[in-house]
């Protein structure tokens, strides 16, 4: 297992790219829900597949999680997890303005997740002169242990990953969801090359 700690400048550069992407994704979300979205400073950290579950609020065992893979040029790839609390997913129909039974909660969650993930990553990609393609969003079973089961499966694919966590909080409804991006170690070197290129231009 290698260590890919980003330098302070690389971390700062990545954080700023994420800030800009997060801002535009939250603007989309705000327009979609016709409300205001409160933004927090995103967190970036290195995680091992063993420790990841502990960083994702392990006490919240009954969350709904949507997973969507992303793939760009230059070997930039990863997975986005949209994590909802059960109380929040119940509020979605109201937030989205759907009539009861118009669309299942699962379909609403997938819709919203896809908007957030693709808006965020398209803006991120455009800043690094890249372009993303996406796998279909997948609702991981919203039953007890959904996150841990999924993460256990992921541990077969990577030992270390860069974890980026962004919280979208809709103030009117006390609704929030976390977007967690997991970039496996094999893709990190490609990200750092891009960051170094941006930093060299300053």
């Amino acid at each position, binding site marked *: 297992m290698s260590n890919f700690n980003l330098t302070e400048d690389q971390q700062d550069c990545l954080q*700023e790219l994420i800030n*800009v992407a997060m*801002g535009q994704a*939250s603007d989309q979300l*705000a327009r979609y829900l016709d409300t205001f979205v409160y*933004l927090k400073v995103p967190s970036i950290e290195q995680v091992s597949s063993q420790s990841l579950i502990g960083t994702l609020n392990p006490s919240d065992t009954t969350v709904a999680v949507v997973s969507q893979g992303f793939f760009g040029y230059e070997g930039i790839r990863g997975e986005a997890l949209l994590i909802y609390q059960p109380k929040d997913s119940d509020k979605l129909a109201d937030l989205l303005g759907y009539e009861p039974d118009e669309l299942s909660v699962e379909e609403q969650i997938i819709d919203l997740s896809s908007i957030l993930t693709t808006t965020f990553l398209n803006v991120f990609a455009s800043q690094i002169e890249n372009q993303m393609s996406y796998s279909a969003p997948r609702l991981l079973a919203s039953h007890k242990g959904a996150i841990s089961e999924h993460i256990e499966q992921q541990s077969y694919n990577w030992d270390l990953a860069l974890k980026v966590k962004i919280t979208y909080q809709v103030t009117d409804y006390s609704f929030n969801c976390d977007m967690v991006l997991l970039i496996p170690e094999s893709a990190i070197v490609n990200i750092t090359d891009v960051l170094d290129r*941006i930093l060299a231009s300053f």
Partner: protein
Amino acid sequence: MSSSILICDDSNLARKQVLRSLPDILSADVQLATNGQEALELLTSQNFDILFLDLTMPILDGLGVLQGIKENNTNIAVFVISADIQPEMQSKVLSLGAKAFLKKPVKKEVLIEQLQQHGFL
């Protein structure tokens, strides 16, 4: 015309983006703050003409700085430069006294246009 400038952003890259967008005539007297608290401390101890202010920051965010400026009656032109582009946020910062809202990443021509519009160039 010489103006003293404070740039407040938690990102080193973002601070550099603002710095390199400034015309030479304004880039001589610039100080930097990495969060809102630092900015307010500098504003109480020194006089500045212009503040370029980020919103999403640790310790004290940009809205907190705008509130502080209002409460202290500090005479300064604030240009908010933020990634939080929601219309409600833009209205909020303008109602708190900011001169303008500029979208991140800031573009040199936009920054210069705003400085001209507000009489700094």
